[in-house]
């Protein structure tokens, strides 16, 4: 009896410590974004929205926010599209060395972002392509494609083959089969990979930093803000970034749960 209670207490304390360790920084960040004062450090002087006003008034931050959104949307869409096409080809056709091709597609997952960024930087230099939000998007497609491919490929079951045959039998061309039958059937995993890609692209710093020049994404802009010292404004923008990521994850979770419920 007492031993059980003791174990219960210990595990509860353990859980509180773990979650505290993970979330305390975020809680502190969010709390001090409401700081009524110039420094985001204790003591908490009082509640104020002035730093959020400052964030929304900052044109550079706002344009970085927009850039981040554009890069995340575009690169996730491309990664999903390419991942879907690759998964379709490998799941439906007998290709030479298909196990190797699958491995090759997933391999970039194991390479660090820094290496990918440096590699792309070299390639872009050689090709004479200037750095811009486009090059950042390319970098994000590179890191997100393996993920999209893996998620979509794993959901392409053999039970869909006959359904695709039926569509072809009724007169659909290959493109129409993919667009009207295969993709809608895979919608949950397509959305899951899209939103997961978006959260990764949204938070990504190294590639965005190395492959951009004048127009930058939000993490890069925050980093340059940080160089001028601690400021509750950085807390405010950080909270906003966190809010967007968390929202995307919740949406993603909903789709993933929706899928497991159906099947």
């Amino acid at each position, binding site marked *: 009896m007492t031993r059980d209670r003791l174990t219960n207490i210990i595990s509860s304390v353990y859980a509180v410590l773990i979650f505290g360790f993970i979330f305390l920084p975020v809680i502190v960040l969010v709390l001090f974004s409401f700081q009524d004062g110039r420094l985001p450090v204790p003591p908490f002087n009082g509640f104020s929205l002035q730093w959020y006003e400052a964030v929304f008034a900052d044109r550079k931050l706002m344009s970085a926010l927009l850039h981040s959104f554009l890069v995340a949307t575009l690169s996730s869409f491309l990664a999903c599209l390419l991942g879907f096409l690759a998964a379709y080809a490998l799941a439906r056709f007998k290709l030479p060395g298909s196990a190797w091709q699958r491995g090759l597609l997933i391999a970039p997952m194991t390479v660090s972002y820094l290496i990918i960024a440096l590699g792309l930087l070299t390639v872009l230099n050689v090709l004479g392509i200037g750095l811009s939000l486009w090059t950042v998007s390319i970098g994000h497609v590179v890191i997100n494609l393996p993920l999209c491919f893996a998620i979509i490929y794993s959901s392409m079951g053999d039970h869909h083959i*006959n*359904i695709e045959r039926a*569509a072809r039998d*009724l007169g659909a061309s290959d493109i129409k089969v993919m667009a009207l039958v295969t993709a809608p059937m895979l919608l949950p995993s397509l959305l899951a990979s899209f939103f997961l890609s978006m959260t990764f692209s949204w938070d990504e710093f190294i590639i965005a930093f190395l492959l951009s020049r004048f127009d930058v994404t939000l993490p890069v802009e925050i980093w340059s803000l940080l160089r001028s010292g601690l400021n509750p404004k950085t807390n405010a923008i950080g909270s906003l970034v966190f809010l967007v990521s968390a929202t995307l994850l919740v949406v993603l979770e909903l789709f993933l749960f929706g899928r497991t419920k159906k099947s």
Partner: protein
Amino acid sequence: MTAPVSIENATKTFGSFTALDAVSLDINAGEFIVLLGPSGCGKTTLLSILGGFLSPTTGRIAIGGKEMTNVPPAKRPTTTMFQDYALFPHMKLKDNVGFGLRMRGVAKAEREERAKGFLDLVGLKSSADKKPHELSGGQRQRVALARALAVDPDVLLLDEPLGALDLKLRRQMQDELKAIQKRVGTTFVHVTHDQEEAMAIADRIVVMNQGKIEDVGPPSEIYMRPRSLFAAGFMGEVNFIPGTISDVNSSQAIVETRLGKVALPKTCFTAAMPSVGQTTTLCIRPEHFRRAGEGDGAVTALGHAAVASSAFFGTHYRCHLRPASAPETSIVAHMPQSAAVMEGQAVTIAVNVGDIVALPSKQA
């Protein structure tokens, strides 16, 4: 619409395995053909070749007189109804049924109208806005039928469509399938391994085994006058009694069996003309023992036998008989339900000569 189908010497090999071995078959327009055989006999391969999902290794296919051997499924005047129905899970029933019309560029209003017409044909008009997962197995099957018929194919190919249904529903769907086929007039080619299903719906049955056609004909002919031992055995229970032809004259042949000599008219030899010395197998259905003496045909007596065991089946008693002249063989016979059959009882075995089918024995 409807069209005849002609299969000429179609062969399909997968590596060293011959799934289909030089099959030739002509199907008339508007006919309900059933390809019947055990799994692995090549019936599904033949259907896939007709649908364009497989190309024959050699041989040719023509539908409505047009060469179709290498035409892809989308360009053929055929549609297939798949065993697992293969409905589009994300579409409403009306969109499932209208899919083929959409691919043919039919405007939305018209295709919904026509889709609803076909849903009406299969009795599901009120469910047009439902999705496939809301339906029962039998209903999904009807939607698959409506979807395949909606594009007005010349030939409808059905790949064991009733296989996943329970027995009662299967018998009910057979009747509906047959009625719908009569109404639309399309040529139906239906694959099954259930001989009762085949007899219930077919105009002609094609019995297949090991990649070859064993027998083709209307159900009654295949059952009563099979042209191969395999067809005889697959269509229902049958007694095989081996024998040798000892004499042949202009109208009949004498076959010597362990049960005695039997004089058979030449019409009993469905597969090959009898010749002296040939080994032959007599095929006698269990229910034919019961009919002996009915009608005015000649009756042949096959000696006495003892009832080894019997069981009541409702419409008849099913008995195992041990013939006195060959106690090691066992004969299955049906006795009338009114007969009081006792184990050990002695009975006379007799059959109408016309009911016997004599086929060449298999060469080992």
